[in-house]
């Protein structure tokens, strides 16, 4: 089987990443990583500040070059992944939106149907002509998540998608992610662990450079590994 020139998002896909080792100076941030994301699942990534969550997401996306890193989709190596059309998009912690473009222009560039992306957020539809500087931080964040969520890719990686988003919108956004997941694999990292645990089918904890898959009682494990106090 060969790698298709463009991914068909109606078919299930499996994204795997391993061999990722990353050090900053003498501190090893990532070691012995095996990550698996698949269509139909929302995968969560938790970890303390500085544990390497963003670096891991960027490595999987392909924006960060790590020697020996292997990122595969359906068994085929895809490095850097972002250069394969229709495969993956990524929301960074920083703003994705250039200050000189309106949201409508960004939606057109990403080939996203604005009406569909904001269908469950009627109060946001009117922001089509707004530029990022004209929006509140939470609204801008939410719209960035929606644009990438509704983009025609097989996978979406979100780094802190819930930052600044108000609780009412968080609930709708979680529903939106559940609706999208049958045709898309989602990987998200956020410190709002309660929302992450409730939303995700699989949760990983990045602890001392290793990726641990949490089991049936994730809260207890998060306490054991020092991510939660109680």
């Amino acid at each position, binding site marked *: 089987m060969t790698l298709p020139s463009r991914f068909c998002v109606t078919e299930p896909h499996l994204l795997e990443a391993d061999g990722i080792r990353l050090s900053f100076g003498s501190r090893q941030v990532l070691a012995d990583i095996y990550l698996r994301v698949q269509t139909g699942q929302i995968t969560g990534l938790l970890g303390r500040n500085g544990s390497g969550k963003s670096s891991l997401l960027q490595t999987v*996306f*392909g*924006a960060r070059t790590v020697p020996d890193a292997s990122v595969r989709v359906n068994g085929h190596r895809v490095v*850097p992944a*972002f*250069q*394969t*059309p229709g495969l993956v*998009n*990524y929301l*960074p912690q*920083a*703003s*994705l*939106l*250039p200050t*000189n*473009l309106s949201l409508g222009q*960004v939606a057109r*560039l*990403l080939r996203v149907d604005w009406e569909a992306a904001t269908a469950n957020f009627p109060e946001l539809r009117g922001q089509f002509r707004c530029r990022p500087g004209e929006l509140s931080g939470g609204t801008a964040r939410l719209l960035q998540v929606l644009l*990438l969520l509704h*983009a025609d890719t097989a996978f979406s990686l979100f780094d802190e998608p819930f930052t600044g988003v108000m609780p009412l919108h968080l609930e709708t956004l979680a529903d939106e992610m559940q609706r999208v997941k049958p045709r898309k694999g989602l990987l998200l990292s956020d410190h709002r662990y309660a929302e992450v645990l409730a939303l995700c089918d699989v949760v990983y904890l990045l602890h001392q450079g290793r990726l641990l898959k949490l089991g049936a009682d994730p809260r207890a494990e998060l306490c054991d590994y020092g991510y939660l106090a109680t």
Partner: protein
Amino acid sequence: MAIIITWVRAVGLFYGNVAPFMLGITALLLGFVLLPALYEGWADGLLPALLLIKLITSPVVWYLSEQMRPNQYWLYYNLGVSRRRLWVGVGVLDGLLFLGLTVGLQRLYS
């Protein structure tokens, strides 16, 4: 074809971000070197030197852009366009623009 169209759009958009640097250097070279040379009549054979200076200033533009806007690439990555492809496109576009303006001015004064 869609990939090329996306790349062209991305390069155009990115050029808009770095244009103040690149066009600024172009304006300085043309305004303070080429125009006086044309006016005073010593512009023959000046084009290679101007192109060389333009080429030498490119790393400065790249460095300033990287330092001032370290997060500017995320949208382009999401369009499937790498940093290298962006800069290659911008280099070609800016080079052609510079060449066009230089040759145009020379013809205007000849």
